[in-house]
């Protein structure tokens, strides 16, 4: 059994990890296990009525099957009604402003709006001016808080099982994040989340893809894969995007593979117990070798499963903590 903290959730929105305290993060992580159980029900309905009668809108400016379906499933398993809006189908194409689009959505009485946007700060400026509970599903390069939370949850779930300690936390855990750090909101949110939980973060990637001053966020930086993973408990590979090549950021995919790919060969440099994680979708054999992705070290599918539970926990906390939203 896990601890039962008495902290109450007080925020209207979940916009990022940077502003959360360690206690708030743990509240989410400790709320999630009961939702893991709901999704794991073998016989019986994988649903609880916590968001019955509530409306959750998924508003995605960028295409994303994985995150969008995870949020949709989470909402449905809480018995909420869901609605998905993709930007290409919405008025954004006709030039409607961000604020107008949300106001129009809210006129239909929404409770939660999950938004993914290509520009940093979009969820933040919306949250300031609109009453819905806003969940940031990724804003440009800035943050992807639910990803970091499900990643931390997965890491903790694993170490609790391995150490047979149901109260273990992430303090002292060594996590190496490998890849295009500059363009990664997953990296930023993970740095905040892991450092607040007491873990040590090492970032590794081509120099051209490491943003200036990122050490000030609390991470160690190296461009040497061996150095990054030689004592890592978790190796987290980020997706590399091919378009970057044209911008003179790295010379070729081939070179990237040689220097930074997480594969059987590079894993020989890592401790045998090290976990392999990836936010998905994977470019097989580019940043992560196929056999590693499918190996016993990999908890990538666990991340996906936990993603639904963590998102259920977040939506429940936002709506049922007694503030904001339409039906409060």
């Amino acid at each position: 059994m896990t601890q039962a903290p008495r902290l109450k959730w007080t925020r209207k929105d979940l916009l990022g990890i940077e502003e959360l305290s360690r206690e708030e993060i743990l509240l989410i992580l400790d709320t999630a296990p009961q939702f893991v159980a709901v999704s794991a029900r073998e016989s019986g309905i994988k649903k609880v009525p916590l968001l019955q009668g509530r409306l959750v809108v998924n508003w995605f400016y960028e295409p994303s099957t994985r995150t969008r379906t995870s949020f949709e499933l989470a909402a449905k398993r809480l018995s909420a009604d869901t609605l998905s809006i993709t930007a290409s189908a919405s008025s954004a194409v006709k030039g409607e402003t961000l604020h107008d689009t949300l106001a129009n959505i809210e006129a239909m009485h929404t409770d939660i709006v999950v938004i993914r946007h290509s520009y940093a700060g979009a969820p933040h400026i919306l949250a300031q001016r609109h009453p819905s509970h806003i969940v940031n599903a990724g804003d440009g390069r800035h943050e992807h808080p639910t990803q970091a939370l499900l990643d931390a949850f997965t890491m903790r779930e694993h170490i609790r099982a391995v150490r047979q300690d149901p109260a273990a936390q992430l303090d002292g855990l060594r996590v190496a994040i490998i890849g295009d750090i500059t363009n990664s909101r997953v990296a930023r949110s993970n740095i905040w989340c892991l450092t607040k939980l007491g873990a040590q973060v090492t970032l590794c990637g081509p120099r051209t893809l490491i943003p200036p001053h990122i050490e000030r966020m609390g991470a160690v930086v190296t461009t040497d894969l061996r150095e990054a993973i030689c004592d890592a408990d978790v190796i987290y590979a980020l997706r590399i995007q091919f378009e970057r090549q044209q911008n003179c950021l790295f010379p070729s995919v081939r070179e990237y593979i040689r220097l930074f790919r997480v594969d059987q060969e590079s894993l020989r440099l890592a401790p045998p117990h090290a976990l392999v994680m990836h936010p998905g979708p994977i470019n097989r054999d580019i940043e992560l070798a196929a056999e590693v992705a499918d190996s016993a070290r990999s908890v990538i599918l666990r991340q996906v499963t936990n993603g639904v539970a963590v998102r259920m926990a977040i939506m429940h906390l936002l709506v049922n903590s007694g503030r904001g939203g339409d039906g409060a």
Partner: protein
Amino acid sequence: MSLVIVNGHVIDPASARSERADVLIEGTRIERIGKGLKGGKTIDASGCVVCPGFVDIHVHFREPGQESKETIASGSRAAARGGYTSVVPMPNTAPPIDNAGMVEFVIRRARETACVKIWPSACATKERAGQEMTEMGELKDVGAVAVTDDGSDIASSWVLRRVLEYADMCGLTYLAHCEDASLMEGGCMNEGYNSTRLGLPGMPREMEEIRIDRNIRLAALTGAKIHIQHVTTAEGVEIIRRAKANGVRVTCETAPHYWMLTDEAVTTFSTNAKMNPPLREAADVAAIRAAIADGTIDCIATDHAPHTFTDKDVEFHLAPFGIVGLETALGLVLTGLVETDLISLERAVELMTIAPARILNLPIGMLREGGPADIVVFDPKKEWTVDPAVFASLSRNTPFAGETLRGQVKATLCDGNVVYQLA
């Protein structure tokens, strides 16, 4: 009828005057400056400073082309409200001011609609494309007072060299917007810890500094005058300082937001913290302040850049650069520079009057008997709160909304007419 401004503290840096005195105005001219003067109408300037109307050599009035943001008329009213009697609008309008007809258009519109003096600038290259020089000789003849491609730098060193030589020949100063745009990949704020933390593409200082250096070197090569616009970085100031010491004919300006704010202001993603060049970090603010104190910065220019609420009410990435500045300048100068004992009140007035006037050789920025009655009366101690809703400008994009500043304009006179008076 004559008008007399009484009981004020007259500051005129051009004549090194700073004393209690009255100013008598007859028609459009200053008749006398002295003690115990009397006239037909009276303006009581007790507790106030009486000085030359301020001069802003860097504003953006959006006429022609984007009149919903600002017109020459509304911009002039904003100027008057801020204590300015002369402004130099930049030529990056739509279409740009790159030929004599457009200069004449600005002059005509100013004559018809403006309440303060408009001194037009013109583009240095046709369409601001950085390729072909404009006909600067003719532009000067029809009334342009400076040339600039402001909004952009001239990318080709060859072209800039020739522009500097030719402008100097025509007696025009080149106003240099220093920016190496190739270092910027969609940048929208200073490159530093905050841009990394917020996930916003950055604009490194080097973008500005590389071009300040290059532009000054070309000025030195040609012997021409060059004026560096909106300086924001410590190193930029240092480059200018060294160039001056080496005898290069360089002057420079900075805007109030560069000594008031840092890139921390971007944290809330408010687009009123987005301008080009961007807000920098604390060390740069300190260096700008030091440069103002030691005279490396020659004058203050607001870079007044109006945008409608709708234009700015978008995602940070997409918002246009710029903030308004005419109506908050005095307050920010006094609050940020004088109240903090960085410079004296007299020096502050100098930076806003005769100093910018001299850079462009304009016959303004001073109080002299027989000269034009371009005067501002302001209360240096009065506290007031910035409320964009009462701005005379058509635009409201200021990061200082709700701030309490010290130093408020009481009255502005242009050619002897009261063009603004605090209610």
